[in-house]
């Protein structure tokens, strides 16, 4: 690479484009030899149902404590496949680069993506790169789509929650959202908060092995946090879910940062957490299985499905009161009142 920044020419399809692909993007992401590069990746036949998902990533800042937009883009799609109970297999990567993006930043992001893919056990098999003029994109946008294989016949959808089901989570809430927010200009908070972004497919495999068809819903509480995700599930399942505030796992630092900014940790994004809605008979076994996993050491029960009929989410507060939780209109904003 001769230039130290992305130029419009890098997206034009000519020699600069090939230079970018051949000397940077392809060697880092997938190591496919130039002779094998075609318009489409041909995938081997699979012996079961396929899961297919897509997600786009526009996070700001692109580098945040503990991660960056790259590993977020890989793990985000891996996790969407995992939540369907699928074994993630192949990813595509679509990059939209802003003219002027430092090549070194792109390199760091690509290397994170490769590392994340290797850890998750997925292969990046196809992709696309576009460059837009300065000011038309916020440094870099990434889209990842993923294909996974369902090696079982289970139906794990959002409408499966039933009365008595237990709600489990694999660890602390609000880590990702607060780590990103605290690193933004204007708020000036310093801490050691880090994103919790990790792939969850191995954890899901253990959960399904332990709970089988008793696992009714799996979902990762990303944007909108635990509250939004559980509210969605309650609506899809027409169920009433009650959460226990005193059972919610949260790092003291995250709780403090939320207090200072006036934010509710239940609505803050997570990137390495999943919610399990499981029949009571298998709750203990699933929890034990989760504890035995690298990303499940802090797994705990946070609530249960307490009724049927209408989609409702409630919170039993720390002092024993009861309140309802509704979806927010938009993103939470820091407040002083």
């Amino acid at each position, binding site marked *: 690479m001769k230039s130290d920044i992305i130029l419009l020419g890098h997206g034009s399809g000519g020699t600069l484009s090939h230079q970018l692909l051949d000397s940077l993007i392809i060697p880092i992401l997938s190591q496919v030899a130039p002779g094998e590069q075609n318009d489409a990746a041909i995938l081997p036949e699979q012996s079961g149902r396929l899961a297919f998902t897509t997600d786009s990533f526009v996070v700001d800042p692109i580098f945040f404590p503990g991660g960056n937009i790259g590993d977020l883009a890989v793990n985000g799609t891996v996790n969407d496949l995992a939540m369907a109970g699928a074994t993630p297999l192949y990813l595509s990567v679509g990059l939209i680069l802003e003219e002027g993006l430092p090549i070194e930043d792109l390199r760091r992001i690509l290397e994170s993506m490769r590392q994340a893919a290797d850890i998750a056990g997925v292969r990046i098999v196809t992709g696309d790169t576009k460059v837009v003029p300065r000011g038309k994109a916020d440094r870099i946008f990434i889209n990842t789509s993923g294909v996974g294989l369902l090696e079982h016949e289970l139906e794990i959808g959002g409408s499966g929650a039933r009365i008595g089901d237990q709600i489990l989570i694999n660890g602390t809430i609000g880590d990702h959202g607060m780590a990103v927010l605290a690193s933004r200009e204007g708020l*000036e908070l310093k801490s050691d908060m880090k994103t919790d972004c990790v792939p969850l497919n191995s954890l899901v495999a253990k959960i399904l092995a332990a709970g089988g068809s008793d696992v009714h819903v799996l979902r990762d509480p990303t944007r909108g946090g635990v509250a939004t995700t559980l509210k969605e599930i309650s609506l899809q399942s027409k169920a009433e879910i009650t959460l226990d505030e005193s059972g919610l796992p949260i790092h003291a630092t995250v709780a403090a940062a939320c207090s200072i900014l006036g934010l*509710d940790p239940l609505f803050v994004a997570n990137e390495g957490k999943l919610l399990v809605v499981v029949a009571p008979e298998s709750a203990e076994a699933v929890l034990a299985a989760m504890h035995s996993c690298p990303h499940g050491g802090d797994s705990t029960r946070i609530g249960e499905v307490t009724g049927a009929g209408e989609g409702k989410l409630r919170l039993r507060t720390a002092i*024993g009161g*009861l309140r*309802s*939780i509704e979806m927010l209109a938009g993103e939470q904003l820091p*407040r002083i009142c």
Partner: protein
Amino acid sequence: MNLTAAFRDPELARGQLDAIAKTVADYDGAMTLMEVCGTHTMAIYQHGVRSLLPKPIRLISGPGCPVCVTPVGFVDHAVALARRPQTVIATFGDMVRVPGSTSSLMREQASGAQILIVYSPLDAVSFAEKHPEQEVVFLGVGFETTTPTIAGAVVTAAQKGLKNFSVLTSHKTMPGPMAALAGDPELQVDGYLCPAHVSAIIGADVYRPLVEAFNVPCVVTGFEPLDVLQGVLMLARQIVAGEAKVENQYNRVVRPQGNPKALALLHQLFEPCDARWRGIGDIPESGLQLRSTYAAFDAAKKFPVEIEPAKEHAGCLCGEILKGKISPRECPLFRTVCTPDEPVGACMVSSEGTCAAEYKYGS
């Protein structure tokens, strides 16, 4: 000591609730307690306090949400300034979604305006220092807890010799509206939970004239759930005993005379003025405006802009909500036409507005 966790202890909460139940066991009729602080409104909802209090006690919200009582014209003025070239509107997050006559700061941002959300007005001053080519206008809204912080920011900007920092303010004071409400024959308030942090600045003694004039108990109360429960208990005890006095539940922070240094800073920069309270009307001497000596930092004087004629939405009952006369569920627009997505009035969009809180947390 973990000051937050200690005041959320569920066992101690149980103790207060039992004591409250015992106190009101033989009380005839309703006991209506009003809090006049948006942060109390939120705290009560967030901790589910209403679901725990015994029957006679009714908690209602008064005009303590500074964003809710800010006139529509202020938002319109901010919108007009946001449309100026090379201008950054720095603001607390609370103001960003409040609807003006035809637009909001959030909408202006979508159309290209620069809106910077800050945690402290000092962060806006730092931003102005780093970007001398931009005009930074900070929106100052709030009661006596926040007004001294805006005063501090202006003093800091003056010390740094900044020419590109100014404030657009709509500050209001307590306990003026409390007297207006206490004197309203249509409103029956048996006791007031007085604001925690406003009182930290203005002092607990400031409520004495209110008690003397209207014979209504006042308890300065903190924001943690145990504070709220203890404050309710202290009010209930006074009411049952037929007493009326000022008590200070939050004495770990609030002193009788308040914070004289903060008050001095406030008065150095600001002077009293008449103020319009959205939904309530004009209350004399209930506002604060920048003194003319600080005109260079007053965005209203520095930038002549055309402000659109103020338009209130017909049918909006925020006024009745703010006066505690009706609850959100009694407003025909609540949840039907007026929602957090499409708010008609400020009570719904302000993060601590009564209607927003009921919508988000009410059971």
